[in-house]
Structures are given as C-alpha cells and as structure tokens.
C-alpha cells in the first residue's frame, strides 16, 4: 500500500484489514513501492499516482517498473484524476490484474473491496469515469454507429463489463436477474461482433480492446 497522505493510507489499510485483506507493508514513495514488491512479493500493490519527491507521475512509473520486474504482480492505481494517458500505459503493460480507480471510490466500501479482490485475482477494475471517457470517444469514429445500436440497458451493461465487473456484480448493480444480464451480454457481443466468451476476464479484454481500437488512439 503506497500513498503519501498518511490519513488516507492508514484509513485504507484499516479498511482492508477489517475485511480480511492482509497489508504486508506500507510506503509513501516510488522507491518504497519497489522495495516492498521486491522484499515481500505481495499479490497486489495499491499505489497513488502522485508521490514524493516530484509529486508528478512517480506512482505510475514505479508501478510499471514493479510490473516489469514481477509480471505476476497485480496493480491497483488510485488517482485523484482520470488521465487517459496513464490508463493507456497501465493497460498496455498487461491487462491481467490491473486497476485504475479514482481515490474517492474507496468510500463505496463494498464496490471498492470487490475491485481490490478482483484485481488481486488477475481481473480488471477500471473507474467508471475512465470507461465513460473511452465510450464517449467512440462517438467520433466508426464505433459510434455500432454503439448507437445498443439499447440503454445494454449500454449500461457494456460500461459495467468494461469496468471489469462479473455478471453477478452487474446483476446486483442494475437490480436485475442474472439471466437478464446474460441476455444483455450476448446481445452486446453480437451487435459489436465480438467473440463471445464465458470467461469474465477474457470478456473484459475483448470489450476494452474494442473500445481502444475504435477510439483512434
């Protein structure tokens, strides 16, 4: 757990501990992250983007370096702002076990803990603002027409898939049955002409690849 704001860091550590997630070490800068990762070999690193001494993008750089040294390490980045450049770099570094969430999402305790567990298990967690930026990009390119063919409910489902949610989580969020979600999902994959997969993770990758590929980036 790497965060330079002590109040927030200790709060998150307490929150994770209360919910049965062991925090093996804490640090407040980029080199600290690398030290912990090398020494403790954790399942997951949670880190802020802006860290001392430069308070720029040290967290992202350190996370990418940690990932390079330990490809099996899952990374969850917490940031005060959504930055397409950073999420792009993070996703490019390997799409299994990565997450990028706005810091205030820690206040939605259940959802946050779901995200932490999902990323630690090799899944994806993208902030809903990251996803809506990705989807908004589509309006200008070839993907726009295909996305426009989705119903509002299907579109909502697509956003939740891109955030990395499982069918069960999507059903909970949208207050519908699991069967209804499965129907939306198969409609989406048919309309966007994506290879269907029952594996949650492969499904996220397909959707993200689709959004990124059609985004003109």
């Amino acid at each position, binding site marked *: 757990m790497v965060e330079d*704001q002590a*109040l927030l860091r200790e*709060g998150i550590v307490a*929150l994770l501990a209360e919910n049965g997630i062991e925090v093996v070490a804490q640090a407040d800068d980029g080199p600290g992250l690398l030290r912990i990762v090398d020494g403790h070999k954790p399942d997951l690193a949670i880190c802020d983007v802006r860290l001392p001494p430069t308070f720029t993008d040290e967290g992202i750089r350190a996370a990418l370096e940690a990932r390079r040294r330990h490809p099996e390490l899952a990374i969850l980045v917490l940031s005060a702002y959504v930055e*397409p450049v950073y999420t792009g770099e993070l996703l490019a570094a390997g799409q299994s076990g990565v997450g990028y969430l706005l810091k*205030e999402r820690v*206040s939605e*305790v259940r959802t946050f803990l779901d995200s932490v567990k999902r990323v630690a298990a090799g899944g994806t967690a993208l902030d809903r603002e990251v996803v809506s930026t990705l989807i908004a990009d589509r309006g200008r390119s070839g993907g726009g027409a295909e996305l426009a063919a989705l119903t509002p409910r299907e579109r909502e489902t697509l956003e939740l898939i891109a955030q990395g949610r499982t069918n069960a989580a999507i059903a909970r969020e949208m207050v519908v049955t699991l069967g209804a979600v499965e129907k939306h999902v198969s409609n989406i994959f048919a309309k966007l002409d994506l290879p269907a997969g029952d594996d949650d993770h492969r499904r996220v990758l397909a959707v993200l690849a689709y959004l990124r590929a059609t985004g003109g980036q």
Partner: protein
Amino acid sequence: MTDHGHEIDLRSVVRGAAFAPFSVILLALVVIWAATGAGYFWPMWAALGFAIPTGLWFAVRWAWLRPKGASRRYALQASVSVVLVVTTVLIWAMSGGGYFWPIFPFVGLGTALLLHGLLLAPSQRRLQVRVDELTRTRSGALDVQASELRRIERDLHDGAQARLVALTMQLGRAEERLADHPDSAALVRQAREEATAAIRELRDLARGIAPPVLADRGLVAAVESLASRSTVKVEVVGQLDHRLPPVVEAAAYFVVAESLTNVAKHAPGASARVTVHLDGAMLVVEIADNGPGGANPAGGGLTGLKQRVEALDGRLEVHSVAREGTVVWAVLPCE
C-alpha cells in the same frame, strides 16, 4: 484596420485625381514640343513640377509608417530632406550642370537632420531601457503567475482534495457499520455523496487551472490527453526532447484545448491534426482540421488565445477557408 482603409482611399484618390491628369498633360506637352520642332526639351520642367509633389507625397507616406511621435517626426524630416536634395540635384543637372551649388542645401539639410538626431538620442536610449525593463518584468510576472497556478493546483490536490477523500472513506466505513440502522446509514450515505460531489468539483476546478498531466508529463503528453478526450478524431504529431517553461507549456496547451473545442463545436464530423515542434528557440503549434472552414478569427475564444500568445511575444494566426478547413497556427518563443 481603419488606418489601412484610409491609406487605400488616399492612394486611389491620388492615383485617380493626380497621376492620370499628370500623364495626360505630360503627353500633350511632349506632342506640342514635337510638333513645334523638337528643340530644347522644355517639357522636362513640367515633369519636374509634377515629380516634386509626388515625391513629397511618397516621403510623407513612408514616414507615416513609423509609430506616432518622435520617430515619426524624425522620419518625416529625413524623407522630405531626401526629396529636396534629389530635386535640387535634378534642377542642377537639367539646367546644364556646372558649379555644383546643390552642395549648400545638401549640407544645410544634413546638418539639421544630424542635430535632430543628436537631440533625439538620449530619449531613444531611455525608451530602449524602458522597453527592455518592461519586457523583462512582464515575462517575469507571467512566469510567476504560471508557477503560482501550478502550486495552487497542487495545493488543491494535496490539501482540500486529499482531506475530502479521507473524509468520504471514513463516512463509507461508518455507513458499513450502520447496516442495522438504515435511517442513520441513509444520512451518512447522503453526506458521503455530497463530499464526493465536492471532490469532483475540486477536480474540475484544478484541471481548469493547470491540467495535472501537463505539469507531470509536459506538453506532448497533455496534448495527447486532450486528443483522447476530444469528441473528434485527432492525430497528434510531435516530440519535444526537453521540458519548456511552464508559462509557454500552459499557453500552448490552452491554444490546443480551445482549438479542439472549436473543432468539436463547429466541425463535429471533421478530424484534426495537431503538430508540436521546436524550431530553434521557437515552439510551433499547429491545429488543422478538414471541417467546413469559415471560422471568424475575431471570435471570442480566438481573441483570448491571441492575447495570451502575444503576451509572450508569440504569434497566433488563423487561416480558415470555406470548404477547406481551419488551421490555427501559433509560435511561442521559449527562452
């Protein structure tokens, strides 16, 4: 612009009212001279008579191009002196040469010009010193402003925003523990949602002041970020091997941001291309789109950008041709 229009009017009036009759009269005189035996070429004196006011007119026009005040007065004296010297030399030559008497007006006018120049020199020097001083303090003030804005953005991020995030987290944990008291839990959730909205507002505010990615990664990354947020398709071409002064980065960033906003607003179906490169010590930024064109360079957003760029001694031009798209081009010195 009104000056320019005035000049055009004057020119056409003089051309129409003076030059045409001049040439007609001269032609007539030459014909009369030829018809009366083509002896001594006296029409040249009439030509000289026409040439003097014409020369004076050009001299005054040239002097009027100088900025108003001392330098215009000096230029006027110099140009009129040149016309007078040329006139006297012509008269001397046309009257058969001989003893070079034009030397006297030449020396007289030259001395007057020299005296005027000597008189002007100290005030010109003072002016130069003042201009240097103003240039220096202005760029200093702009630098200070740019780094102050970045500091404010960072303070918002590390101060108020961080505290609010910690607050929402505590509220979130409290809400979890109040699962058995739905009424209290609802109150806490409301408080948490309010705090989250405040975080969002602070974030938007901070981004408007100084976008984080600009401070963190520099201009090209910030432009790429703008491109990926834009609702039109944007291609970014550019590489800078070092960071530029914050004030230049910020001005260039807002030129690109405003231009891309304009493309999205006025040419939603178009695609755009942003190029960023250094030409010596000058940063050149160009935003070109293939939209319908016809943008008004005096439009509110563009005027603001122009002022911002000119405050840094840069230049901003907008070329917008109907059906050919719009190009916004800015050059910023980065010393």
